[in-house]
């Protein structure tokens, strides 16, 4: 699969990757390596110039409420309450009857049950991002795509969201793909990290992060070892090995010819 702004220069080239259902995958790379472009292609915000993205058997041809993207800014609507913001996705896809049951459940899931009737502007940045998470989760997506969603938050808020988002995703059986340039974020959150190389963007390394939830909190030897290992890969990425192909495909991104 490739994608280019101008025909002569590909932003991404020869991306061939498969993601299992329920997996938490981090796309790690420096600014401008095309990791956001790759995420946008999975979401349908942009379409590849060649090849295709397939989610759970469906070729991505555009946006869908079944795969939802979360951005760096929560972008809540300031004229609405927290609950109204969280209900937007359900409202847009014509499931207004589900709002009364689903929204309180989602707000409880992100620890904001008591904030339903507050104006979105009364909340802190971290709380707003939690509302954005509830808004993304309410329509019950199969896949959640995170485009550096915590990079505007302070360290403590960021860490609690990193932990909670991972736990929520695991509890709901949600597949999570996140883009980050923060190695520790990848170690804390991901089961699997894809390290991207730039010009054109390609997957240079595909490595598993084998830590339990407690170890992911940090401060232990296992965590530090994984951090050092991933940092070394990230630094030496230009000489990485080609990615392997795991089974139990949930999301597959591949050139057309290989799909057939």
């Amino acid at each position, binding site marked *: 699969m490739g994608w280019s702004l101008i025909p002569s220069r590909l932003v991404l080239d020869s991306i061939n990757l498969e993601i299992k259902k329920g997996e938490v995958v981090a796309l790690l790379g420096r600014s401008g390596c095309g990791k956001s472009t790759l995420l946008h292609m999975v*979401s349908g915000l942009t379409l590849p110039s060649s090849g295709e993205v397939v989610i759970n058997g469906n070729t991505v041809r555009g946006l*869908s*409420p079944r795969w*939802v993207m979360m951005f760096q800014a929560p*972008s809540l*609507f300031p*004229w609405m309450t927290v609950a109204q913001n969280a209900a*937007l996705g359900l409202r*847009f896809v014509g499931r207004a009857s589900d709002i009364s049951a689903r929204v309180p459940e989602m707000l409880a899931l992100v620890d904001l049950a008591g904030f339903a009737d507050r104006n979105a502007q009364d909340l802190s940045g971290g709380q707003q991002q939690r509302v954005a998470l509830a808004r993304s989760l309410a329509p019950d997506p199969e896949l959640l795509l995170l485009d550096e969603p915590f990079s505007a938050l302070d360290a403590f808020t960021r860490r609690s969201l990193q932990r909670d988002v991972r736990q929520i995703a695991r509890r709901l059986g949600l597949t999570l793909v996140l883009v980050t340039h923060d190695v520790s974020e990848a170690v804390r959150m991901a089961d699997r990290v894809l390290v991207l190389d730039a010009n054109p963007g390609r997957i240079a390394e595909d490595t598993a992060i084998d830590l339990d939830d407690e170890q992911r909190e940090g401060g232990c030897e296992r965590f530090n070892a994984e951090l050092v290992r991933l940092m070394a890969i990230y630094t030496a990425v230009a000489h990485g090995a080609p990615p392997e192909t795991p089974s139990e495909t949930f999301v597959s991104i591949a050139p057309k010819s290989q799909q057939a």
Partner: protein
Amino acid sequence: MTALSANSGLRLALPSLSSLRGLAVGLLGITLLLALWWLGGWMIANDPDLSAFADFAPAPTFAALTQIVASGEVIDMSLPSLGRVGQGMMIAALLGIPVGIAIGRIGWLRELTNVPFQFLRMISPLSWMPLAVMVYSSWDSAIVFLIAVASIWPILFSTAAGVRRIDPAWLKVARNLGANPLSMLFVVILPAIAVDVLTGLRLALGVAWVVLVPAEYLGVTSGLGYSINDARDTLDYARLAAVVMVIGAIGFILDYAFMLAIKKFNWARDTAH
């Protein structure tokens, strides 16, 4: 939590203090205006060349005002005027808001219409009067047309400016959550620009209310403009001044109503995070 509740307590306390002060300053201003008016009336009454116009002074005016209010005449003369302004502004809003949204959203349309619209905007609505009289069979329609022409520009430009200030991220989020163009319009764009549209309507009302009176000098036999003309023809200057008071009072009340609506729909906070 505690910081927030303390903050909201503060927010409750401050406006009541400032609104009390605002009321006092407003009353002082009105008193000053009345004093100047009384002084003017006194000077006119003592000038032999102008003493015929002495009824413009506050005392005769308030007597005439009491009379037209008590007899219900004030309703009879105001309703036709309010109807014409309402219809004219309605037409202006129905044209101006959609066109404003289109201009705000579509770059090439904005560039294309900028010069012609600025050109048309600068033409006094009253200069269309002869044309309006020829085109429309009734005076009423001609006046409604003039008010619509006067009102459309503030509504259109204010709407377009509001649309341009919409955070593109709101539209991206909505699209990402599966919003179709219709819900995009009603759930995102219109609430986001509500205050701009209302501000445009408030400005439009100011222009429309000014245009109304000269427009009603011609042809029609009802309305506030007609009442002024009628009072002049019968040399009833106290009544003329009383109608002027009514025009000012209604204009002030309508403007205040728009201000309250703007306050209600305004979601922007000074203390936004």
